[in-house]
């Protein structure tokens, strides 16, 4: 138990320090929110129509920013050896790394997302749903991004590989989340989108640790 808490503390502290921590992800979201009206034109009508969608895509990309090097530093400095020989299986280690990442980057992003969406013209009443969608989506993004990061270990140009591996996996949660928010705004059924997103996030959280642990073991051998 003590080992688990030690790992949780370490991962949160590393996620906080890694590449600017939550400021980088939230800053990226803020940058997209600022630039979108400049590119799409200031008329409130068309902007409001795409506000939630733009925010959602920006959030998906922002949550991947810090994930690329999730395992790489530990691999390069030898800490992955220590993590692999510890009292907890690598699957748990990988899950803790992703959850810490979500806590430090995903949760602040989920709180910032409705502000960004409302600033672009999304209805205020959608705020709670946007938080829920962003939080659930963030879990899926963290675990999928972590899988890409683990698979890219020990390969040159890993960053490119992460994008190629992770992008197709990101499509379903982006569709489900977009459907939930869009449906809610237009007064259509939206609960199914949220439920599917939740199911996808849970499946990612349940399966990705095995993929990550396997990829790490492969990189260590």
């Amino acid at each position: 138990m003590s080992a688990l808490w030690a790992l949780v503390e370490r991962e949160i502290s590393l996620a906080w320090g890694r590449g600017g921590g939550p400021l980088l992800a939230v800053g990226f979201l803020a940058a997209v929110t600022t630039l979108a009206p400049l590119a799409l034109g200031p008329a409130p009508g068309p902007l409001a129509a795409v506000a939630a969608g733009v925010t959602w895509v920006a959030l998906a990309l922002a949550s991947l920013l810090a994930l690329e090097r999730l395992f790489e530093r530990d691999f390069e400095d030898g800490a992955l050896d220590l993590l692999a020989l510890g009292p907890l299986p690598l699957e748990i280690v990988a899950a803790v790394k992703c959850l810490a990442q979500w806590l430090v980057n995903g949760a602040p992003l989920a709180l910032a997302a409705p502000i960004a969406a409302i600033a672009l013209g999304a209805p205020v009443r959608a705020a709670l749903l946007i938080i829920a969608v962003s939080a659930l989506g963030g879990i899926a993004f963290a675990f999928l991004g972590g899988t890409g990061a683990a698979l890219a270990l020990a390969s040159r140009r890993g960053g490119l590989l992460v994008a190629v591996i992770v992008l197709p996996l990101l499509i379903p949660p982006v569709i489900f989340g977009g459907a939930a928010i869009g449906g809610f705004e237009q007064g259509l059924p939206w609960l199914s989108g949220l439920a599917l997103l939740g199911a996808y996030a849970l499946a990612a959280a349940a399966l990705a640790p095995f993929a990550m642990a396997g990829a790490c073991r492969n990189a260590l051998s």
Partner: protein
Amino acid sequence: MITALDVCGLSVQRGERVLFRDLSFRARAGEAVALVGANGAGKTSLLRAVAGFITPAAGRVSFEGARDADEARRAHCHLLGHLDGLKTSRSAREEVVFQARWVGADAARALAAARRLGVERQLDLDVRRLSAGQRRRIALVRLIAAERSLWLLDEPLAPLDLAARALVGKLMSEHLGRGGLILAAVHDPLPIAARTVQVGA
């Protein structure tokens, strides 16, 4: 607690290249084994095969005194590779406390071990500001903080000064005296009595 390490007919292959073939030795509690061989002969690969990271092409590694190999590796092994496994962005104190807790000791034991290794004054510095020798001492802290019977060491003395080598020699003898085992890949002779096993060639 591991009472003996048995390496039996071990062959390790990296890609197409066979590093060594049919290597056998046995180390009992209280014994140190120095692995010697040219650069690239496979000393590190042998250590990683014992630690379970590399699947050998033939032969096997077994541990006596543990339920199974996995339990032996997770609960009774310390592996210190030629990388120190420290995060440069964190303070030495954060790193020794994390490493010690991860392998089953607590913060107090980590700090006592740091004092033993003579690095208590460096604990509040970021790891990036430490010299290679100081980093190695910091990395050795977990071996002293948490009692584990088998030490797998890869060039443990390389960056250390003479005083630190003598100190590590003393810590190694104490470990052997408690019934521990040491398997170390070295170029310089170990500062303790050790059996030599030639790897490769």
